[in-house]
């Protein structure tokens, strides 16, 4: 293999300005061989075979979670972010509820993949007056302090003034064995924190299998998971179908929880490596890997 011209080694722009999506191809696949080889003995059977998420604490940082929905099951702890007259907003315990329905949908996906996981919710959206950026920072800091193993963030902020603080928090999570799984943005604008190296970023593929996911060899998006017409919990009960990267991230969060329930010693770096290793398009052999990218 010519290592100098391989696409995955090519120069990348500082910013992918104008590139709308790092999702699975909608109109076809371009395949290109990657230098890939298996870590001996590590496959999906090793990673999550027989796992059910027991003992792993997952937090959904979102619009809240409806604790009554049968797809979601028990919500261990629930907080919302409350604005203060003076000083930054703070997290207060509350009953698990969700006005937008989005957090409930994400929680249901995680539960469907890792049925015995401990699910908690931090509601950072819903009160437009307090500013979603500062609520997001407070909520994320609280989730890290609470020591969750996995935090699902199907949201992002475009406000550059939050970038540095968000980056600090994501690094803190990374070094505290708290894995952040973040939905990638599919607009041609700068947003955070999905494009930070310390998190696991996820875009969508259009296939219907919840455990099927792909490694993307041209970051910043690292994985593609099910994100189109996903059956999700509907507010007030029942099931509906939604699409978006928001629903791809909880699939990877659920799979990460499965892996951690078997191998709780994994750091976020090791966990990301295991996820890479077990992706559908990372195959054994010198010419075995497949680069998945858009054809246009």
């Amino acid at each position: 293999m010519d290592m100098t011209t391989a696409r995955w080694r090519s120069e990348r722009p500082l910013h992918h300005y104008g590139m709308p999506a790092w999702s699975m191809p909608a109109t076809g696949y371009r395949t290109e061989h990657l230098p890939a080889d298996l870590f001996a003995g590590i496959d999906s059977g090793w990673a999550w075979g027989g796992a059910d998420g027991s003992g792993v604490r997952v937090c959904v940082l979102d619009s809240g979670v409806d604790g009554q929905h049968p797809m979601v099951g028990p919500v261990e702890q629930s907080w919302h972010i409350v604005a203060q007259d003076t000083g930054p907003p703070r997290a207060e315990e509350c009953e698990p509820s969700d006005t937008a329905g989005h957090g409930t949908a994400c929680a249901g996906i995680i539960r469907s993949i890792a049925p015995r996981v401990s699910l908690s919710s931090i509601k950072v959206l819903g009160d437009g007056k307090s500013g979603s950026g500062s609520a997001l920072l407070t909520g994320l800091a609280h989730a890290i302090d609470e020591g969750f193993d996995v935090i699902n963030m199907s949201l992002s902020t475009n406000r550059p003034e939050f970038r540095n603080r968000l980056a600090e928090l994501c690094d803190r999570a990374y070094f505290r064995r708290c894995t952040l799984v973040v939905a990638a943005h599919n607009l041609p604008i700068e947003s955070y924190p999905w494009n930070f190296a310390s998190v696991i970023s996820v875009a969508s593929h259009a296939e219907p299998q919840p455990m099927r996911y792909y490694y993307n060899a041209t970051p910043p998006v690292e994985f593609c998971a099910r994100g189109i017409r996903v059956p999700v919990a509907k507010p007030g009960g029942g099931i509906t179908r939604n699409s978006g990267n928001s629903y791809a991230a909880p699939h990877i969060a659920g799979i990460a929880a499965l892996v951690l329930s078997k191998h709780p010693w994994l750091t976020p770096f090791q966990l990301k490596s295991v996820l890479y290793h077990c992706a559908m398009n990372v195959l054994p052999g010198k010419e075995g890997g497949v680069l998945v990218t858009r054809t246009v």
Partner: protein
Amino acid sequence: MSPEPFSGITERGLLQSVVTVARHVYRAAASSVFMMNPDTGELIFAAVAGAGEESLIGTRIPAGTGIVGWVAASCQTLVADNVADHDQFAADVAAATGYVPASIMAAPLVADGECIGVLEVLDRHSDGSDLPSRDLDDMELLGLLATQAAYSLSLLQQRERGMAAGRRLGGLVARLSEHAAMDSHDPLAVALLGVSLDLLERSSTVALRG
């Protein structure tokens, strides 16, 4: 350059153009746009093409509520199916028009790092392809349309701010002209008038450049 060629553009007209294009590209039952009130976070229904209709313009959705509220708060594009029975806005549309949308696709309008609104398409491709992979393309295109719309709105707002400044300056110049006409021998008044006219010309040019 003078501002006249563009003076007929209003925010309402621009938004109407955006929803008309979106409805056309997706062969959709309707497209609508919501603008965010920056003080309250409420989303206000601002323009519509197709089913959904004018009577709903001005309808307010509390911050963070429903599908458009989620899109505005999270800055994520999404598609939701079977929405009529659980989305407040879809329910309002159904109640006001008798039209019940099956699916909503929505993307945030982001300008200068802020979400300023949401672009929404109801029941796209009602007569076309139903492949799941199509949804990825649809969301990507909606994101591009929303980004273009947000840029246009941002430029329009900048221009309006520039024109407002020009109008204030114009008022000053008019008063100065009156003074100079009364006492045309006052060299200071004539010099000030000249400088003011230069400034006025410059502010119009800057406003047009955005």
